[in-house]
């Protein structure tokens, strides 16, 4: 039987995934990808949500690149698992960022799905009408 989550993301049907949290509207995928769960990050025009002061409030890849840079992330080649590197995958649709996922130590990815739950998943599982495609990877080297 197809679950409500699989109805939203048909790519989950044929991929392994697991739900790892309850639903929450208190943080979103960008916050979760950057390792926090207390704020909703977004470059909204009315300035109600969190966004780094120094970065333009616009829904562009360039603005997200700069926002990730404030947290120590820089663009990298791919989403291959690398020891000592935290990676983020950025999804976009029609050139506009829609979603971000963070790589887990086992090579899978963790995502916060809007106001729904966190899941662990493959990157392909979330590709589709809602989030578009993965268009960029970012990495941050972590201290040993």
């Amino acid at each position, binding site marked *: 039987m197809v679950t409500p989550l699989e109805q*939203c*993301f048909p790519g989950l049907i044929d991929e392994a995934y697991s739900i790892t949290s309850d639903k929450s*509207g*208190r943080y*979103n*995928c*960008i*916050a979760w990808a950057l390792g926090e769960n*207390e*704020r*909703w*990050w*977004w470059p*909204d*025009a*009315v*300035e*109600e*949500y*969190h*966004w780094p002061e120094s970065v333009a409030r616009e*829904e562009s890849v360039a603005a997200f690149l700069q926002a990730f840079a404030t947290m120590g992330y820089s663009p990298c080649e791919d989403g291959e698992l690398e020891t000592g590197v935290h990676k983020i995958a950025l999804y976009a649709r029609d050139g*506009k960022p*829609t*979603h971000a996922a963070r790589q887990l130590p086992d090579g899978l990815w963790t995502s*916060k*799905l*809007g*106001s*729904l739950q966190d899941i662990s998943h493959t990157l392909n599982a979330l590709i589709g009408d*809602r989030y578009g495609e993965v268009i960029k990877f970012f990495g941050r080297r972590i201290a040993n």
Partner: protein
Amino acid sequence: MGATVVTDQIARLSQWARVAFATRCAARLQPFTVLPEFVPDNTKHQKIVTEAQELAQRLAEAGGVPPEPDAATWEFAESMRASSSPFEQAMRWAKKQAADCPADAHVYRAAASAYGAAAGYLLAASDAYVHAKREYPDPRAFESFIECANACGCHDDAEAASEVDLLWLGRRLFDDEDPVPETFFGRALWPDGEPQDWRYSRKRLVELLELPERFRSLANMWRNDTRTTSSVTEMAMHPAYQRIVGFGRDALPFLVRELAESSEHWFWALKSITGANPVTPEDRGRIDSMAEAWLLWAKENEINGNAS
């Protein structure tokens, strides 16, 4: 629409809806309380209407079961009823003038209509005054008003009927225990000085009555369509969300209630509608703190989230 229909309509209303309508009539009387000089004690009537309105307002604000009127109340109410006579006298005078002066007949017919309406409204006001007896409003008040209006070739009875109809439509919102909100007819229900915006159109009032259901439906549609998105812009640009923003300040009680119950993303709508900015830069993105800031703002601005 004839007198019988209006009277029957009134009979179907709840206690507080009848009070609202009667007081509404009293409110409409205000412009007519400056009577022609030939009417004896013409200033006294203005005072009577004002006092009736004030009392009706106090009773409505008290809520619950109205107090039993005492002898003095009945006496005062009777004096109000008696005072409708000069209005009727003025109406007859105006009608005669219309017949005698064909060139200005339209002016006098309008005056006759106004005084006729005033006579009916005053009776209605007295009914509001004695509403605890549940014998109000006396159908004679409205029949008198409608007869006057019809005799003058006017159709104000349709407007009165329309208002009774609206109170009937709103029966889910106020019953025998719950007073009609003072905003129901705009500011005229409990007028504070000269009403500025009491002539709400029927279309406008119907919109207000339908607003709770429309809000619920649009909010559910928005919630269902945007639950997987992180983009606040996508949420705010959703057609259902935009329609809610389009309700303007009418949407505020519903938005405040939603925020109090679930801390959802209504911040953009609140900011767009009000222009206010109660969230500090440090709290941006902290949903619970943002909700608290907006709820405090709503309290300070007397926006009640107890929308139906």
